[in-house]
């Protein structure tokens, strides 16, 4: 790893630059809401910043709810692993392995 070349996002300033571009775009898009005349089909769309807020809040709620779902849905990776296995199968697993990836 010592003499490996550095890649684009190995430099933190490049990541920062990308994030600043994103923040800039978001700010610009928010302002455009007030500039562009929109043909709205629904009264909710008339609210300033409806789409940006909905997108942001929607995603935060999505992630928080999904994280909370982990508390009762998450199980170990091999939860279903012993389905329908006999003792003999379990023995042969040790020899042939469970995950074949060259297919």
């Amino acid at each position: 790893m010592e003499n490996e070349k550095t890649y684009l996002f190995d430099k933190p300033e490049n990541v920062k630059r990308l994030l600043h571009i994103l923040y800039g775009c978001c700010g610009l898009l928010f302002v455009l809401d007030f500039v562009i005349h929109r043909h709205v089909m629904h009264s909710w769309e008339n609210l300033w910043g409806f789409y940006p807020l909905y997108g942001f809040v929607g995603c935060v709620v999505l992630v928080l709810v999904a994280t909370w779902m982990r508390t009762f849905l998450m199980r170990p990776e091999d939860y279903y692993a012993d389905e329908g296995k006999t003792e003999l199968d379990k023995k042969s697993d040790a020899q042939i392995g469970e995950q074949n990836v060259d297919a």
Partner: protein
Amino acid sequence: MWMLEIPPFLPFFIGALIAAVTRGTLRNVIMVAIPVVSAFHLWTVPEGVHLQFAFLDYQLNPYRADKLSLMFGYVFHIAAFIAIIYSLHVRDTVQQVAAMLYAGSGLGAVFAGDLLTLFVFWELLAFTSVFLIWARRTRRSYAAGMRYLIIQVLSGVILLAGALFYAAENGTLAFGYIGLEGIAGWLIFIAFGIKCAFPMAHNWLTDAYPEATVTGTVFLSAFTTKVAVYALARGYPGTELLVYIGAVMTCFPIFFAVIENDLRRVLAYSLINQVGFMVVGIGIGTALALNGAISHAFNDVIFKGLLFMSMGAVLHMTGRINGSDLGGLYKTMPKTTVLCIVGAASISAFPLFSGFVSKSMVMSAALENGFDWIWLMLLFASAGVFHHAGIKIPYFAFFAHDSGIRVSDPPNNMLLAMLIAAVLCIAIGVYPSALYSLLPYDTGYNPYDATHVLAQTQLLFFSALAFVWLNLKGMYPPELHSTNLDFDWTYRRLLPNALRKTFAVIWQADLAMRQAFLVRLNGGLAFLSQRHQGISGLLSRTYPAGSMVMWVAVILAAYLFLSFITH
């Protein structure tokens, strides 16, 4: 004009036969040539019924072409062509033959003009595709394939039952509008629903697709669910129930997708989410909504194929597919990274990418027809799909923390297949008129008005902002080695366990009853023997000889009497 009568599935079935007996370059050339030649042929086919014959009392139309079926026919050819190129390096005859038969079955199903032919291809889809799962040759894939096959065959059996009821009710097997009337309507609806991955019938998809081979999943993602979407669009347009089912389908998978570790399973969940948009469109049933549903199916085949191909490339090169094991691959797989991002942008419906020009039709139709709350759900799902398929997939595979894995881009045939799909995604996004001209209805819809573009871009950029913010705050759920319980838990754990426990109780009760009976019986026998043993007992009593003589006399008298009355 005998050429007209060659149904599109035939070249693929012949191709499968040839693929079974040829090897190497010859097989590759033939397999690539078949979808190309067949597509050119299909392009010249006019609308109409091109093949029909009588079976018993019923008229069968195995080859009916109209705008709806032709649309799916075209995209199935594109999908088959791309997936065949993607799998040219595979040296596994089982997969090559199964893939050709599977693609042919999909084509057979969308050109079926009657329910019996539809049923035949419906079952063939299941029996041919399962080999693409089993070809992984692991115990996991064998078990997942078995579950897949059972559910698919069940769907087919329900379809057959529905078709028989339909024939009895209507006196015809023709496959047209069916509607939710009578038992036939509901049975066929349920059969389509299972294949369409309706909520609670969806786990065959998330279970089996990620267990299939690298190339097999690319085929699988194209045909089965889209055949179901086609069948719903043909049989149940405007059925309001579909709007609600579809809306649920768009929303619930994204929660599972956010916490899922296997990136191909994340894509399987997002496949359900995309099919949800199509189902909503079919449920609304106006010209605009149906156009939206059909064109979204068309685009989804291509961009979902592209995403599955890019994740397949990652699995092929690294041997891993869990988000927790990957990261930093952009360094040595730059081409795959870019192609994956094109697929991600398309499924997220960025303007100028293919998802945008089709999904917006369904959304507009939902608003136009007063489905306000459904529209809000679809909007939430649009933000969510960007979150899990648009950002999560490329981010955890190619960026995120550096896993230290340094593998090169995949073989050229895989890159070429992805490139074709990516070019199509952008071409359709930039020039949607070509796609629109193939659609069944002419609605004069234009996706690129300022309002739409601005709204969609705002939604997506602020979703991205939410992702960045959650990540910086450390609130984004990390990728963990885990299994998340879904509805399949009911039939993989709950039901087997419940049955095991019930039978355990029944066996226990049965055992207890038998034992209690034996105890009683022994007790009774002991009591009797106790009572009648010894000098005074029943069996050891002494009788005088005179009583025996008397009984002999009684028996003789009875004989005498009987001989009298028989004469």
